[in-house]
């Protein structure tokens, strides 16, 4: 059971110190729970079977001004075998909610577009015993996830890879074979005028000697039954069933580790945009929209899951594509680096043995 007895709010201030008021925020604890779980797994403190079931979320009060102001919050996950794991999260966790609150202030004309704001975060004991909505009654028990972990030598993967972008020590290492990047690129080019995408499957590896857990992408499954146009790609329940059917058919014990999708050339809308502006434009150089974030939160909520975007450019013969990887860091989705595994090399070299959770 997840114990989270506090409700959270944001207080906004103008630069000159004027208080712009408080707004309640709907705190979604899942990304923080998943991040804490992964940290426990990476440090040999948790096992796959521990899950996030026995956990608590508590505010960390502000050192100077104290309650109800917070510096962040603390998540603890208990383990069957060990003391479990504790992770602290800063108020940056609420940055998107603060950004939205700022936009709402602008929309209601209480703030000018060019004004900057500061925000502080507060927590209050949620003692309003809300009447539980009429819900189906049943007993629930957490069960092991359908994921296996392969004991491997991390070094043997790194030695055969090139680092692309920056991987911080906090980021779980992700290894993507170059052939899979090429495959997604070709699919994106082939459907040039429409967004396309799919799911990346692979293995979770663990090297207890480091200790480290890392992700190896092994295949790309193009989204079937998806509905696509130039600005939107809809993954339907049939898409997800087809992906899982493909995973089951392969019989390699792979799990969903990422998803990918393309962004079509922005074309007409950028025609009048000057060259120098285009060079730094996020629409041209890769971005992760609010819908993309929400899809990631909805389906790819495990902290090891990532998202690959491919952005097609208008220039030249149209074959220019940039890709970017996004992943969870402290419960927030951020751009990140990854390892590109060279083509033509077997990935089995580094495996010691596979272990499936009971």
């Amino acid at each position: 059971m997840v114990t989270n007895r506090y409700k959270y709010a944001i207080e906004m201030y103008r630069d000159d110190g004027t208080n712009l008021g408080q707004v309640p925020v709907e705190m979604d604890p899942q990304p923080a729970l998943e991040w804490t779980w992964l940290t426990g797994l990476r440090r040999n403190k948790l096992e796959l079977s521990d899950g996030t079931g026995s956990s608590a979320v508590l505010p960390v009060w502000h050192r100077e001004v104290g309650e109800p102001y917070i510096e962040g919050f603390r998540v603890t996950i208990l383990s069957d075998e060990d003391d479990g794991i504790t992770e602290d999260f800063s108020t940056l966790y609420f940055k998107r909610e603060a950004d939205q609150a700022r936009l709402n202030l602008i929309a209601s004309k209480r703030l000018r577009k060019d004004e900057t704001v500061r925000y502080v975060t507060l927590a209050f004991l949620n003692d309003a015993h809300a009447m539980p909505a009429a819900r189906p009654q049943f007993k629930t028990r957490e069960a092991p996830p359908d994921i296996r972990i392969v004991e491997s030598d991390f070094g043997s993967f790194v030695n055969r890879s090139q680092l692309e972008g920056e991987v911080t020590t906090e980021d779980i290492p992700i290894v993507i074979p170059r052939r899979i990047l090429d495959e997604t690129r070709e699919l994106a080019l082939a459907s040039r005028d429409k967004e396309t995408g799919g799911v990346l499957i692979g293995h979770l590896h663990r090297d207890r000697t480091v200790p480290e857990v890392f992700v190896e992408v092994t295949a790309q499954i193009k989204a079937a039954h998806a509905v696509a146009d130039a600005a939107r790609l809809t993954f339907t329940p049939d898409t997800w069933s087809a992906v899982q059917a493909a995973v089951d058919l392969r019989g390699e014990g792979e799990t969903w580790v990422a998803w990918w999708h393309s962004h079509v050339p922005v074309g007409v809308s950028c025609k009048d945009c000057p060259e120098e502006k285009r060079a730094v434009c996020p629409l041209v150089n890769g971005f992760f929209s609010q819908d993309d974030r929400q899809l990631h939160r909805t389906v790819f909520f495990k902290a090891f899951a990532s998202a690959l975007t491919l952005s097609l450019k208008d220039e030249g013969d149209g074959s220019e594509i940039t890709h970017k990887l996004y992943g969870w860091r402290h419960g927030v989705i951020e751009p990140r680096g990854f390892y590109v595994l060279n083509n033509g090399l077997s990935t089995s070299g580094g495996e010691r043995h596979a272990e499936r959770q009971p």
Partner: protein
Amino acid sequence: MSNTLLDLVVSDTSRQRVKSIEEVSPDYTAAELVQGLLQELGLATHDHSGRSYSYHAFNRREARHLGANERIGDACETGDWLVLQPEVNAAQGLE
């Protein structure tokens, strides 16, 4: 058709979060059960603009999606695994 309580396994679409649910009334509709399970599984219920996601329950044994109004006692047997699958968009446009 079952009139006794059912024990089921439920999971998110990636099967990375799994729960056993016990003593489920056979008289719930699939839609009622799905609604009750979203919070249980910690799944997102609405998109960033507040629109509710539509989730469908996929019965692995029969490899089919349950109709929203199907009675659980008619559509499931004890031991069945239901996968909750949303319809979600990846869309262009910056915030």
